């Protein structure tokens, strides 16, 4: 019998690494639970001794492409990093450019941005919860979360006209005013979601099987979380009171934002923080809708130059841009944009040489910062805990690879 023998291919042969007899397991890039990445897992028996996340499968050179496009065209480019969290990912970039342009969004626009950001956060958390569910083979949580996410996708499309890639915040404001039906639809969605969260608790969160899978798994102590630079709900679950929204961008300062903070830092706590953040986000949107100021949804500077023939759109709550908007020139300098996405803090570092395109746009996405957790959290656990760890840190490869 002829045999093809290649190192690492022969399934029955154990590898040797650092004097230890370990199994090298390649989880991904084609695997039901790897995502767009590969996890190289070293197993001693059933225990994980090391995880090497092999990332970069969906790298799309967003930073370099941004240097070849005018400022306004970069908005829908950076959106592609995380289309499921589109407003949160573009808003810090827009704010950074606004700082260089010397424009400030009118209050109404800031509130509308906040509303969409929080709706995006709810959908993003539901997406993460759903994937966290299916990683534990809990198909009901998966389908429920994705089904209920549809409610918030619907709300977002009411506001922006697009289900996922909203391209909603633009320099100086937002692209659409609040539609009339929105308040009513949101009110219903909030009531629905709060009721559903109780059901999630019963079927998923308090389900003894799920509890057993998540409790005490992948514990991230407070000091380690800070040292590793973890971010987002993963950081807050470890008891660190930090959230980029505390810097008070958009309308968060006016709304008196308070972050949800956990304590234990295990996988269950990370899921718990996400569930509570959904509640908190619903609360924030409701308050933002209540306190929504009147006024224009885009800075006067841009509306003045709009041709009179199409001005009627502005009264109907639709944006019309002046011709010069494509060729906006910023002052030379640099600006930093920070914002809290569903998965954590995103940072844009923008350098301008005074031209129409960014000279350099550096992006640090939350998933890129959280990828370090794979190795840190999975070590010492069994192979079965790896999906639980993956699901609980809510890692999103396209976001990390940029």
């Amino acid at each position, binding site marked *: *019998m002829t*045999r*093809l023998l290649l190192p690492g*291919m*022969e*399934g*029955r042969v154990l590898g040797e690494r650092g004097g230890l007899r370990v*199994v090298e*397991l390649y989880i991904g890039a084609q*695997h*039901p*639970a790897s995502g767009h990445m590969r996890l190289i897992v070293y197993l001693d028996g*059933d225990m994980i001794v090391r995880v090497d996340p092999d990332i970069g499968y969906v790298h799309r050179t967003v930073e370099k492409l941004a240097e070849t496009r005018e400022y306004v065209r970069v908005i829908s480019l950076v959106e592609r990093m995380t289309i499921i969290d589109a407003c949160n990912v573009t808003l810090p970039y827009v704010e950074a450019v606004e700082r260089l342009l010397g424009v400030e969004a009118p209050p109404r626009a800031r509130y509308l941005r906040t509303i969409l950001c929080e709706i995006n956060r709810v959908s993003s958390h539901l997406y993460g919860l759903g994937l966290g*569910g*299916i*990683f*534990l*083979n*809990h*198909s*009901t*949580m*998966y*389908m*429920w979360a994705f*089904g209920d996410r549809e409610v918030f996708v619907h709300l977002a499309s009411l506001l922006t006209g697009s289900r996922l890639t909203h391209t909603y915040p633009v320099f100086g404001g937002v692209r659409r005013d609040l539609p009339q039906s929105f308040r009513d639809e949101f009110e219903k969605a909030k009531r629905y979601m709060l009721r559903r969260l109780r059901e999630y608790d019963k*079927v998923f969160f308090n*389900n003894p*099987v*799920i509890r*057993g*899978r998540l409790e005490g798994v992948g514990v991230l102590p407070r000091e380690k979380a800070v040292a590793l630079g973890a971010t987002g709900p993963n950081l807050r679950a470890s008891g660190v009171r930090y959230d980029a929204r505390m810097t008070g961008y958009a309308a968060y300062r006016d709304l008196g934002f308070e972050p949800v903070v956990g304590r234990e830092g295990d996988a269950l706590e990370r899921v718990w923080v996400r569930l509570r953040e959904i509640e908190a986000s619903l609360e924030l949107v409701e308050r933002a809708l209540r306190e929504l100021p009147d006024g224009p949804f885009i800075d006067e500077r841009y509306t003045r130059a709009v041709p009179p023939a199409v001005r009627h759109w502005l009264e109907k709550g639709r944006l019309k841009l002046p011709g010069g908007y494509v060729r906006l020139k910023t002052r030379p300098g640099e600006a930093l944009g920070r914002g809290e996405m569903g998965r954590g803090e995103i940072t844009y570092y923008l350098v301008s040489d005074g031209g129409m395109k960014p000279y350099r746009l550096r992006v640090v996405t939350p998933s890129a910062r959280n990828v370090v957790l794979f190795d840190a959290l999975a070590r010492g656990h*069994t*192979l*079965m*805990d*790896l*999906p639980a760890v993956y699901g609980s840190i809510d890692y999103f490869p396209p976001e990390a690879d940029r």
Partner: protein
Amino acid sequence: MDPIAWLSGSLGVPYWAVRAVAAPLVYPGLAAFMVVALFIIWAERKIAARVQMRVGPLYVSRRLGGALQVLADGVRIAFQEIIIPVGVEKWSFVLSPILAFTVVSLAFTMVPGGPGIYGFRSSLSLLATYAIVTLTPILVIVMGWASNNKFSYIGAGREALVSITGEATLLASLLAAAMMYGSMDFVEIVEAQMRSHVPGLVANPVAALLFFIAALLVTDRLPFDLVLGEQEIVQGPYTEYTGLLFALSMALGYAKLYVLMLVFTHVFLAGWAPFTSPLLGSIAVFAKTLLLMLVAVFLRSVYGRMRLDQVASMFWSKLFPLALVAFVVSALIHPIYAP
């Protein structure tokens, strides 16, 4: 009226020989199992869909709510190319799923499908059925070993652990029940329950619950689908299989579930009670078995997968000691089944 008598008369073969062939091939054997598998897989998908606020299979046979979807899938899989990867142990790779399914089918000669509907009657048929069903893990381990794939290999390891863990509790609960009835013959067990009008489920609920949970474990049903473990090990020992061999390895779990739920029906739900005629009795057995299987597949939409060490510790340190309680219950209650 009796088809078996008619067949034996027209073919000139002894009655018992016709029965020994008809039971495993027709009812409760393979033909019935095909119907059960087609229905239960559809029901599993439909129930999960309903719980998850979806529609589920629909467009194949729309009038029947997509009931023929499984048949369509089965036909597709049957004609799919069987790929034998480089580096597998060819003969064990091909033969082990076939052998495993054959072994499970042997159980249909022992388990009655109704009053007088069985292949063989033996005073140890309960134990023999158990022995046959618990032979398959060895072949599943062979599958995992022969596949030459790390995921399959890990899956085979899990199968070894799961079978040892589950079968101890399964056997203990069965023996507790057998002690209660004072018999290991399915027919006598059912008759004892019909005589006393107390089904085993009421008399010894502990043993019934343990049997059900252990049956979920040995048949890879959620929350104990460790061997399949899609999110960790793709499909466990079955990862490398394609086509008909894959269908066989998937049918294996359902066949085991069917056999074990038949056993549950006889041992704890009084088999064909309240009927004594072969036709009505068979329908009663079939309906009870299907109902039990529906409960088993419904659990898929409630639970996730339990962790390996938690399953092992739950079974050895909680359920197995509970089986001893089941023995105590049997010892206390057995006079009601005394002849």
